[in-house]
């Protein structure tokens, strides 16, 4: 099996599906056909995506189309995230859209539009994580914006359109800075490298990275961090995020928050690696820490304050992206691993939570938490999912984010950044207060009068249960192979340092090395 062909298939499938759906007439085609194509393409994405991920974890990197596409361990982690969450949210879309159609919120053309752009969105994200060409990386991120505008604005209410407009304007303006960063790197590399045509490939630039011009690389990294950070939802570029997430249909919010933000972070990480290889890890880490701490600190209080369930979750995404940035900013193998685990954990958890928020909205027809009471009494399964999701998001065991948050604290302390950790933890406590308040206020307590005790359709619950199962699974067990591949991905990030060539037992090695440091310090004292 030639994996590069599989990669092309993976990329092609959603495009084909989108084109096919676009060609069908909106009114004449039954909704079922759209749904079938949609589900089929997502199934292909899931299977081939996971297959590719497995092969990368098992073997070596995959290149396709003459080096334009490249899937390494790092990208594979994020591809895995897409391959899991996109089908889950895609499946969840079916009952959600059906419900909105029944409510009269969506017409046939909007349904068609929804499914077409959903596929395009998936395509653009796959493009973002598999692209090796740095300019194509930018193009793909821009494409994610463009493909989701109509998903955000699918309802055609003033608020939805306002959110969509803000989303597209703020993101394109922000991401445009990313292009400058990309171009600076390219031009810089083209000067250094013998074959200028190679200068556009990330894998080719990386070995040459130390030779690049230092100040230009720093400027380029700043541009990239701001540009792609806009898409990732880092403060103060996050402003589009709560609006878009709150107005978009829930499955789209889930996909936006669960995957898209992480894909943007992956691109930031790619530039981080280049910058670290060039000027040392200090500067990119500083930038990430500043962005991360600001995001965490700002968003935590917003999470507490919001009354709108989806805005609350959106700010929580901002906060978690900040946490990941802090992890990367802390750096070192521990920090990188913590960040990567948090990407996965948060992706799954947040996708789950947005879907559950969708259930809640289907049931209560409002996003106002003051009006949402007693979910457990009204819809038991949704209620349990809601409570579990909130707790997972708050970082309680046995859920996945507990592991990553612990790893983050460990990494911070290992890097002697005790105050940083303390600062972040204060914010985390605020977030937990917010989420526990949400549980006590909405999941528990008395249900509103006259609301029937009936859960949402089973089809809506299945993907959520799957996501919850994954979140729990990663929370109780991070088996060797999976953790090994995360360590491998971490090793790719750490490749800027010569000291960490071995990807085996990166975590334990780093931890054990700390004890060595301690002894050395004592000796030197």
């Amino acid at each position, binding site marked *: 099996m030639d994996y590069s062909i599989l990669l092309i298939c993976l990329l092609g499938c959603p495009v084909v599906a989108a084109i096919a759906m676009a060609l069908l007439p909106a009114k004449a085609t039954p909704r079922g056909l759209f749904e079938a194509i949609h589900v089929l393409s997502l199934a292909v994405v899931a299977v081939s995506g996971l297959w590719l991920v497995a092969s990368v974890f098992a073997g070596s990197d995959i290149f396709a189309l003459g080096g*334009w596409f490249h899937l390494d361990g790092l990208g594979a982690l994020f591809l895995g995230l897409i391959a899991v969450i996109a089908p889950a949210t895609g499946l969840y879309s079916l009952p959600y859209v059906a419900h909105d159609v029944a409510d009269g919120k969506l017409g046939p053309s909007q349904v068609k539009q929804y499914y077409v752009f959903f596929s395009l969105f998936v395509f653009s994200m796959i493009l973002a994580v598999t692209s090796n*060409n740095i*300019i*194509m990386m930018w*193009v793909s991120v*821009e*494409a994610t914006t*463009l493909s989701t*505008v*109509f998903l955000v*604005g699918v309802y*055609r*209410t*003033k*608020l939805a*359109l*306002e*959110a*969509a*407009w*803000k989303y*597209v*304007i703020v993101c*394109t*303006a922000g991401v*445009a800075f990313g*292009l*400058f960063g990309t*171009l*600076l790197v*390219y*031009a*810089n590399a*083209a*000067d250094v490298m013998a074959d*200028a*045509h190679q200068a*556009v490939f990330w894998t080719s630039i990386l070995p040459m990275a130390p030779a690049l*011009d230092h*100040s*230009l690389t720093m*400027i380029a990294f700043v541009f990239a961090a701001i540009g792609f950070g806009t898409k990732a939802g880092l403060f103060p570029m996050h402003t589009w995020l*709560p*609006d878009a997430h*709150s*107005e978009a249909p829930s499955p789209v919010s889930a996909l936006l928050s669960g995957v898209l933000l992480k894909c943007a972070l992956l691109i930031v990480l790619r530039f981080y690696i280049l910058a670290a290889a060039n000027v040392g890890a200090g500067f990119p880490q500083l930038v990430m820490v500043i962005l991360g701490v600001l995001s965490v600190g700002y968003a935590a209080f*917003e999470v507490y304050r919001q009354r709108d369930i989806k805005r609350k979750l959106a700010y929580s995404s901002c906060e978690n992206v900040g946490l990941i940035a802090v992890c990367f900013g802390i750096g070192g193998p521990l920090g990188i691993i913590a960040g990567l685990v948090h990407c996965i954990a948060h992706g799954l958890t947040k996708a789950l939570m947005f879907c559950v928020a969708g259930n809640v909205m289907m049931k209560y027809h409002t996003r106002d938490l003051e009006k949402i009471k007693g979910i457990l009494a009204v819809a038991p399964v949704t209620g349990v999912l809601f409570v579990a999701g909130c707790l997972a998001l708050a970082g309680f065991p046995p859920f996945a984010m507990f592991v990553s948050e612990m790893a983050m604290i460990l990494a911070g302390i290992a890097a002697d950044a005790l105050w940083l950790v303390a600062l972040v933890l204060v914010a985390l406590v605020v977030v937990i207060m917010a989420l526990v308040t949400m549980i006590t206020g909405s999941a528990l307590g008395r249900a509103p009068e006259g609301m029937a005790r009936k859960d949402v359709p089973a089809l809506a619950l299945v993907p959520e249960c799957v996501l919850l199962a994954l979140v729990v699974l990663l929370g109780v067990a991070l088996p060797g192979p999976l953790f090994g591949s995360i360590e491998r991905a971490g090793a790719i990030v750490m490749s800027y340092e010569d000291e960490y060539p071995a990807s085996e037992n990166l975590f334990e090695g780093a931890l054990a090395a700390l004890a060595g440091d301690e002894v050395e310090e004592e000796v030197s004292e």
Partner: protein
Amino acid sequence: MFGYPLVNVLGACLIITSMLVVLARTGRAAAWLYSLQSLVLVAVLASLGAVTGSTELFTWSATAFATKVVLVPAILLFTLKKIGDEARTDLPPKLNPMKSVALVAVEVFVCFVAVSGIDLPTAAEVRPTLAVSLAHFFIGLTCIVIQRSIFKQIFGYCLMENGSHVTLALLAPQAPELVEIGVATDAIFAVIILAVLVWRMARYARTLDADDLCELKG
């Protein structure tokens, strides 16, 4: 008069035309001016191609002509027609023309200062143009920030786009065509999407005033 000096002069023309786009009173005038602006851009690309001998740049200029001089203004004019009386498109900007020009001047100056610090062999000859392209980008941003009409903000995006396009051409003349195509398609799609959004906004919300779009807040 040929060679890099020409490129630099054309760069100066870019600034002036883009300022005109920002200052245009009506959407229709802005669209025509934008077409003119893009023509200058094509000229920049073509002359750059002639100077560097890069065949890619000629193809770039050709596609740029097709998309930016023809297609984009056409789309925008079409949108304007579709909107018709649904909503006012010609809202005055937040800043008066005098202040806008001053702001643009400051931006151009800052960009020149910033670019003079850059030390790249590729860009040594075209440093003024590089500064122009950066300034162009910021003029686009300024356009978005100071306009009240979201229709005119599309021009802001287009100007940013043009700016980055020039930068791309200056810094990466040897980049594969596919890259350029990707960037250009993105731009086209972006304009189409923005136009559709503006149309829908006019249709469903009956307003194109950015000041009316402040309902979603923190």
